[in-house]
């Protein structure tokens, strides 16, 4: 069953048509990769899904609900979490606090109960902490728990960002170039974690990725784009040998 459906979405910035009439659907429980040369519009598609940009045409459906015009902060509540290409963490806080912010959508407390830190808020904090610790265990971040983000190496920050997204307990996880800035070993680990995320947590993953090895290993289906248009959609092997894809990367 399709979890996310894009029907002919387009967006243009001034005269630049960043995404033109792109349609695809992401099935529940799969790893869906978007590949393409720089400037193909991959990240823009993520920004359209997470409603940072407005689409200028087409429609987006998540689990049957039209999300083309919902406010950006409601996307997380629907069950879509994301990471950013160059990490957008809360730099002056610890890893733990970042993960707790990830749990924000599950809050039941309000400003008043927070002001007095009522027993319910304390219980909620304990529950959030427990959930955060589960994610810390899954992604092996124990030794960084109390460190401030600004002091962490880039590779760890990427993992913290995935961890924070997992704290939302999403149904769909959007990963924007998860392996950029990781060394080959870390990339290897990442592909195993992706498997865990999909199989153990039952989360559908969509990622933008340049590392073809990772794409080949991890993804079920691949969407190839160039200049804002879809050029191929299929299994990793199909897409890698598709003549249009070869032309986009290598030229005529």
């Amino acid at each position, binding site marked *: 069953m399709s979890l996310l459906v894009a029907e002919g979405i387009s967006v243009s910035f001034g005269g630049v048509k960043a995404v033109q009439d792109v349609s695809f659907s992401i099935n529940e429980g799969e790893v869906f990769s978007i590949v393409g040369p720089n400037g193909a519009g991959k990240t823009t598609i993520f*920004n359209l899904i997470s409603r940072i940009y407005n689409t200028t045409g087409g429609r987006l459906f998540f689990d049957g609900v039209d999300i083309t015009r919902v406010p950006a902060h409601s996307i997380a509540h629907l069950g879509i979490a994301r990471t950013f290409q160059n990490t*957008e963490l809360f730099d002056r806080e610890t890893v733990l606090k970042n993960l707790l912010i990830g749990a924000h959508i599950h809050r039941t407390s309000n*400003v008043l109960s927070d*002001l007095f*830190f009522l027993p319910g808020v304390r219980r909620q904090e304990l529950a959030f902490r427990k959930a955060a610790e589960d994610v810390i265990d899954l992604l092996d971040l124990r030794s960084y728990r109390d460190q401030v983000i600004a002091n962490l190496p*880039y590779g760890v920050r990427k993992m913290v960002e995935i961890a924070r997204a997992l704290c939302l307990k999403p149904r769909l996880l959007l990963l924007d170039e998860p392996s950029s800035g990781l060394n080959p070993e870390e990339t290897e680990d990442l592909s195993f974690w992706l498997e865990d995320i999909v199989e153990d947590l039952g989360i559908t993953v969509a990622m933008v990725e340049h590392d073809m090895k990772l794409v080949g290993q991890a993804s079920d289906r691949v969407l190839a784009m160039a200049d804002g248009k879809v050029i191929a959609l299929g299994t990793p092997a199909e897409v890698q040998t598709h003549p249009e894809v070869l032309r986009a990367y290598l030229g005529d």
Partner: protein
Amino acid sequence: MRYLKKTRYLQDINLFKHNGQRFWYGLLLLVMCLAPLGLDRFLLGELSLVYIYAIAGVGLMLLVGYSGQVSLGHAAFLAIGAYAHAYFLNLGWPFPLSLFTSMLLTGLIGGLVAIPVLRMSGIYLAVATLAFAVIVEQTLTHWESVTGGFRGMLVPKPEFFSADLNAYIPFYYLCGGVLILVMLAGLNLLRSPTGRAMVAVRDSETSAQSMGINLARTKSTAFAISAGFTGLAGGLFAHKIGYLAPDAFTLLTSIQLLLMVVVGGLGSMHGVIYGAIFIGLLPSGIAVFRDAVPPSIGQIPGLEPGVFGLILVLFLIYEPLGIYGRWQKIRLYFEEFPLYRRSTYKRQKTYLRTERLR
């Protein structure tokens, strides 16, 4: 170097992390309570003023230090709190009700002002809040039926169960007690989802939004709470100065409040206290300075705003983390002695921010 072995999640949630902290804060509370025994009338009055500044400081710190929204108009909220409190007292309301209502009223006004103002950010926000402060100042001058205009307004003496709170010792305890309550409320916010949402908005709006945080609501909540606490401080401030006139709440007051949180250390509750002590005692310091230097220098008009501005600029350039940041560095130096590394706190440049959205 001390390493804390944590065995329970509550250790990260509770206000005190270990018994050492309980001991030191307990000692501080004891000193606060016993201060009237050792201090004379003048110093006790100064200390009460420091507490009042700190109450407003908690409010401003939540807004500037934790939500990342600059306000140059907090004197206006101080004024609204002060005038509302005095007005209600003049109507014959009991003291606690009047103080509480003026806090709520100021918070409400803060929340309403936030809706249009917080569409702006950075320097534009600062200018908008400044404009708000000017509007309030003009209103205070011209709404004579309520505020008394230029003639000003007498603040009735605070009474609670026929106890005279205006005598300097009860007033000292009143300010201290309110400060502790406000401080607790601020700390509670920061360890719960509301405070974390503010921090998220401060550090990355895009990311906060993708985490499901409603930017507009978070910012206006921060503004309302900040205004409410400042209004509360205003109510106490009214008693401190005894007679309200518009010239008690000028741009200089706003700058003074901002100076407090910047000098104390943005993003720390300790910083509020350091900053409040600093600006509470600075005017006395400047007065001493005026007497000590030759009259040709000491009698320069506008020395105070000049010194305030200079200190603000120096702190922004050399110690953006304020007095609290400096204190942390000194403490780390002694903890790690003799292994302290000079570059521990060296500011790093990050080159990874080029593709930030918006």
